[in-house]
């Protein structure tokens, strides 16, 4: 009887430990490679080029108005971010932007989640250096509370991020495919998530 109790306890402990490892593994299921600051920074510079392209940066402006077009001019109609990032009063994003792109040149692009980051976490891309943006992306206090895994998922799978590669008539695409972009994000983090030096442009 005593032996049985000891065996049961051991089984419980082993089971608990293995479960906790599985949970940990699931939490951090991204690939980890040997630390490589040069390779990590190189991957981030590719990521940076995408994030600073008009399709991404236009909704991550330095000010409180979204940007428009390949020249990233300030959105016409005096549109503002608003507290939740979805506009103000009669100028809410979804008043014009539908759940999908409206067909035709200069027609409103669309997505169910269309909007800017919220007032209390603006997640600005515009004007950020590669180093500033890398550090900002890695800081949960500035990135929407995301872990590295959640950051990868956001870049690789989020529907609104994915809009950048299906932006509707007349809009240029980011400088690489979504799959290539996601691969560079993963590589950046796998090799240690290093931020470029302050001199990097």
């Amino acid at each position, binding site marked *: 009887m005593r032996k049985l109790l000891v065996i049961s306890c051991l089984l419980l402990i082993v089971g608990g430990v293995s479960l906790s490892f599985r949970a940990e593994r699931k939490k951090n299921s991204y690939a980890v490679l040997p630390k490589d600051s040069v390779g990590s920074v190189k991957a981030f510079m590719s990521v940076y080029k995408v994030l600073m392209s008009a399709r991404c940066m236009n909704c991550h402006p330095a000010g409180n108005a979204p940007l428009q077009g390949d020249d990233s001019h300030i959105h016409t*109609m*005096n549109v503002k971010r608003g507290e939740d990032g979805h506009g103000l009063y009669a100028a809410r994003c979804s*008043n014009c932007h539908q759940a999908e792109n*409206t067909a035709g040149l200069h027609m409103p692009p669309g997505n169910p989640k269309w909007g800017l980051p919220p007032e209390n976490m603006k997640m600005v891309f515009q004007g950020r250096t590669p180093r500033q943006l890398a550090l900002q992306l890695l800081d949960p206090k500035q990135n929407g509370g995301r872990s590295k895994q959640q950051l990868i998922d956001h870049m690789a799978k989020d529907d609104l991020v994915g809009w950048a590669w299906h932006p509707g008539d007349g809009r240029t695409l980011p400088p690489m495919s979504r799959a290539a972009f996601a691969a560079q994000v993963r590589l950046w983090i796998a090799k240690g998530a290093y931020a470029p030096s302050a001199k990097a442009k």
Partner: protein
Amino acid sequence: MITLTVNGQKHDIDADPNMPLLWAIRDIIGLTGTKFGCGAAQCGACTVHLNGEAVRSCVTKLSRAAGQKIVTIEGLSLNNDHPLQKAWNEMNVPQCGYCQSGQLMSAAVLLRENPNPTDQDIDDAMSGNICRCGTYQRIRAAIHKAAAMQMEGAKI
């Protein structure tokens, strides 16, 4: 068949779900107070309320509006007595009038959410509604007047 609820009345419409809501409102239901301006959500003349939000009906598909609550200028008040309509009338806001139903629908959302708006609040809410006659100063003044009327009414 698509069911639209416009100004509290149900309409069963046999139309393409991709048809702009504006077409159905004007050409099928026959409510012509809402105007076609640009067809690209750039001028605001076609503004109606969809579940209380000031949507541009020229780019809003019937599929989005189906089963939702739509209010047009004809349904803004029972007897054209919304404080905004009264203020608009008293201050002779319209010139040609073409954009004004859209202006009123946008202003109504502003006043519902902000009963005492500043000039900046008015600019933030109303800049998506273009007036070719340039009645902006009177629109702004009338919104202030309507806000005062609304607050006065609330006290009674």
